[in-house]
């Protein structure tokens, strides 16, 4: 494709539009972005260096708030929890999604698969808050999950999954996995449909089984789609808020506290704006620090 030909600036008669006239098109978007995103980012940085209750005068404390984020067990644990959630929000949907997509690849054009496309997208369309409410009820002590467990003879392990110190975080993680599994499966399936079928035929002729096919053809061809799934789901885990706010409010104890919720509590209930802002800065940096390497990984594969 002669894409490079389109990449050069619209030269010649368009030259006049590259200056003031063109900038008039950018300015409105830039203004909204500056006022409601860039300025707040700068202010978060500024707040993070002060001790402020949101009302009275503020005192300069330097990096003390950052020290607190990494030494106060409550704050630090929220960061640790966010990383634990990656296992559920990211690893499960991507690995399971790959396995499912590879299995249903051959029937991707069937009517059942078309219906499935719609159904699997439902969790992406509904508010996360609704997902949180539905799952809180499913995971309750008299909920469907326990009913199913008793049915298969596992009545011994039933409990209030979201209220138990040991299971609350995995339970919240499973809600996230439910939300993201469909999206990952369909993204990966769409990627698989672009793989040249001749590759699979050749592998079959060489006597390769389904597993060999999966490892040598499917996964390497899906590098970019996998990177996208990982990026989207990792960000969803680190920045999770809605589901946890509804399902556990960070409890029991602090077992499901995540940075997003902690920032909300610190800033608007405990009135520790400085600490909240320091945690917010750490969260923003973490998200970028996780997203960038994944992008580079995907780009390298395309060269």
């Amino acid at each position, binding site marked *: 494709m002669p894409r490079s030909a389109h990449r050069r600036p619209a030269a010649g008669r368009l030259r006049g539009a590259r200056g003031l006239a063109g900038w008039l098109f950018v300015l409105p978007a830039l203004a909204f972005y500056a006022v409601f995103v860039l300025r*707040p980012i700068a202010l978060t940085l500024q707040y993070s260096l002060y001790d402020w209750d949101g009302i009275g005068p503020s005192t300069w404390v330097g990096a003390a708030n950052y020290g607190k984020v990494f030494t106060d067990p409550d704050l630090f644990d929220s960061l640790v929890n966010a990383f634990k959630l990656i296992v559920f929000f990211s690893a499960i949907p991507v690995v399971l999604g790959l396995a499912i997509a590879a299995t249903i690849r051959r029937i991707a054009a069937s009517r059942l698969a078309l219906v499935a496309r*719609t159904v699997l997208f439902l969790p992406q369309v509904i508010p996360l808050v609704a997902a949180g409410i539905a799952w809180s009820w499913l995971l309750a002590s008299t909920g469907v999950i326990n009913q199913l467990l008793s049915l298969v003879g596992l009545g011994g392990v039933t409990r209030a999954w979201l209220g138990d110190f040991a299971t609350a975080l995995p339970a919240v993680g499973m809600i996230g996995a439910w939300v993201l599994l469909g999206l990952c499966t369909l993204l990966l399936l769409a990627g698989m449909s672009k793989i040249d079928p001749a590759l699979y035929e050749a592998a079959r002729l060489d006597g390769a089984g389904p597993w060999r096919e999966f490892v040598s053809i499917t996964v390497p061809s899906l590098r970019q789609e996998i990177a996208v799934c990982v990026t989207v789901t990792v960000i969803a885990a680190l920045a999770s808020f809605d589901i946890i706010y509804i399902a556990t409010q960070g409890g029991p104890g602090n077992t499901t506290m995540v940075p997003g919720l902690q920032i909300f509590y610190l*800033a608007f209930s405990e009135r520790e704006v400085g600490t909240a802002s320091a945690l917010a800065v750490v969260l923003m940096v973490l998200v970028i620090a996780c997203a960038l390497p994944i992008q580079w990984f995907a780009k390298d594969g395309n060269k």
Partner: protein
Amino acid sequence: MITARREAWTGRLLLIVLMAVTLLPFLSLFVTALHPSGTYPAGLAWPGDPQWGNFLRAFEAANMGALLWSSVLIVLGVVPISILLGTMAGFAIGHLRVIGARVVFLLFVLGLTLPFEGVITPLYYQVRDMGLLNTRWAIILPLIGLFMPFSVFWMRAHFVNMPAELSESARMDGANVWQLFRRIHVPLAMPAISSLGILLFLWTWNQFLLAIVLVDDPAKRTMSGALGAFQGQWGTDIPLLCAGSLLILTPTLVIFLIFQRHFVKALLQGSLKG
């Protein structure tokens, strides 16, 4: 061939299990919503006497009419303006290549992965100082700003592939930059614009954090934010809460089912590009 057929059957079975898992929460909400209000139904059990009236009661208790209207107003405030500003900026950066386009684009890309929690604290004080707290503008204006990185990124990706010759000939005919944009490029960008519109609609309608922080009155929030308040108020009445949740997710569900093909396409493209 036998392996192929066996694989197809495994695939079908797996697909059905997956769909069942996806639908289970909805089914549970629905069945529970039909139980007598105030009871604690155990698991999935069809009630002896289905209480269809629970939906009506939840509709009234949650003041659903006002909530719907509020969400519609917020969407109407956010989506058209975000599309217009994002398309204009994407056009100037991707097609006109304004001087400094690279730098501005990078500045926007910087905000692509921004978690809203990162800026919610200063946004609160900023919106308060603007005197907009507890109005719908408190959700609308920040959301437009927060959606700019994605909108610009999305539209630029479209405009970058538009051939320069297209504009050159239009300019030769004496069209100014605005006419060029309005008459030639916007019509050609319609597929990209409608996908963007679908994504922005979903993200606005389901926005929770901004709604609970910046607006106290549930009747002035998004549907999602109102559901949070509804849970606080009716959290102990499980059947009513389930009925309310179902009602609140119905509008997106209906719109999704009507435009499902566009939605699926937009969501898949959206995550690929984002």
